[in-house]
């Protein structure tokens, strides 16, 4: 059975907001909303292609990433000073496991290739 929404049965601030939003598609508000939607799309298109905006976003994101890297490095140094294992140590173990997995895959691929190439043995009937 499919779910249906009875707006009268759903009463809280969230659903009031939802109902209000729904009315944007009906009545006199719909024309205003459609115009806003068109205007917004045009503005967004301009913004999404604006070199200055994208450049500023890029700088801001990069600073955020560098800050996080620096913070993590600081934590790592502190943990090392306390002779505690760090996430860097665990990553090294994961890297080695990845390498082992790759070698195993290479062996399996070679085995598969040699099994495919192996000629079918000739069956000779002996005379008894």
């Amino acid at each position, binding site marked *: 059975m499919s779910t249906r929404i009875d707006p009268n049965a759903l009463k809280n601030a969230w659903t009031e907001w939802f109902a209000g939003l*729904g009315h944007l598609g009906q009545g006199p508000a719909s024309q205003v909303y459609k115009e806003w939607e068109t205007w917004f799309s045009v503005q967004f298109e301009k913004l999404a292609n604006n070199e200055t905006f994208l*450049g500023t976003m890029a700088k801001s994101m990069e600073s955020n990433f560098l800050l996080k890297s620096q*913070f993590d490095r600081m934590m790592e140094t502190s943990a090392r000073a306390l002779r505690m294992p760090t996430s860097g140590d665990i990553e090294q173990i994961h890297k080695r496991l990845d390498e082992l997995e790759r070698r195993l*895959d290479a062996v399996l691929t070679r085995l598969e290739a040699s099994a495919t190439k192996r000629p079918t043995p000739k069956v000779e009937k002996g005379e008894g």
Partner: protein
Amino acid sequence: MEAQSRSAFTPFQAFGEAVQEAARRMVPIELRGHDAPGGHTPYDVVATRGPVRLLYYAPRGERRFKTPLLIAYSLINRYYILDFMPGRSLIEYLTGQGHACYVVDWGVPTGADRHKTWGDYTLGYLGMAMRTIKAREGIERVHLFGYCMGGTLAMSYGALRPEGIASFTAMAVPVDFHEGGLLAHWTQPKFFNVDALVDAHGNVPIWLMESGFRFMAPLTNVTKWRDLWAGRESEGFVDTWRQMERWSADNVPFPGEVYRQYIRDCYQRNVFCRGEMVVDGERVDLKNLTCPVLVVLAEKDNIVPERMAMAITEVVGSNDVTVRTFATGHIGLSSSSKAPKAFWPAISAWLAAHDA
């Protein structure tokens, strides 16, 4: 939760998640998407490695075709869009037609997967899937089927190990990344330092992936509610809406090193398209892909625009390339109500015609 991002930031993240969860609980169930069921067709897990599972969907009724399919979905969102809803599921449709389907579920990458490479996801995981299928079925060749970025991964695998591929189906697969619309524009090296991101976060966090996609189409955050209101009394509309909400909100972290190579080699340098991408020391020469190829395109695709996907016809070495274009969007190819009658029969018929 993604283990990689655990650091001194964790308490702040935990607080943010608790606030989000509390806000979700305030929303009546009819308007919630995140707890809608995901996937419904029964399957068996036939192989696992790390976070990855290989799922087997047996043909419903009689198996009509010898060659099974291996379906690879993108690393963005989850595979079960291919099993969207009863009556609107590509997997359900194909198994109903008598095809045996294997699907790769990439799972949820953790900090342990941050150093996994493009090679690990292709030669490693897809290689493992191919070996498992061949051994289970006692066959030499498999139909490879890729959707979205999963198709780019599958295509790489097919170019590196073409001998086991019976055919390749590319459904909305990005190939020429310089034709990638807004995403191609935003990921230019001058606007996007992928090294700084991966070095800082390891796996790309969910919030960052989500904010990128929301920014691509900001109006949908309003229009989806308006649409829900408009369709609130239509038969099945609310269930479909909730299912789509659940799927689109079910993001997973993107494995860090795979992301670095994806952005750098595909979006920024576009070397994949030129057959110059290098994976585990081997060049991904797309001319090696000589098997029959089916290209499935969506006319209104704004994630993988037609020209971006159509480039496959020029770069593969196959002499047998079929192109089918459907009047829908990127996700519509796998979940539209029109798909079971208008899109998928053509795919099934093509696969049937190329059965061993």
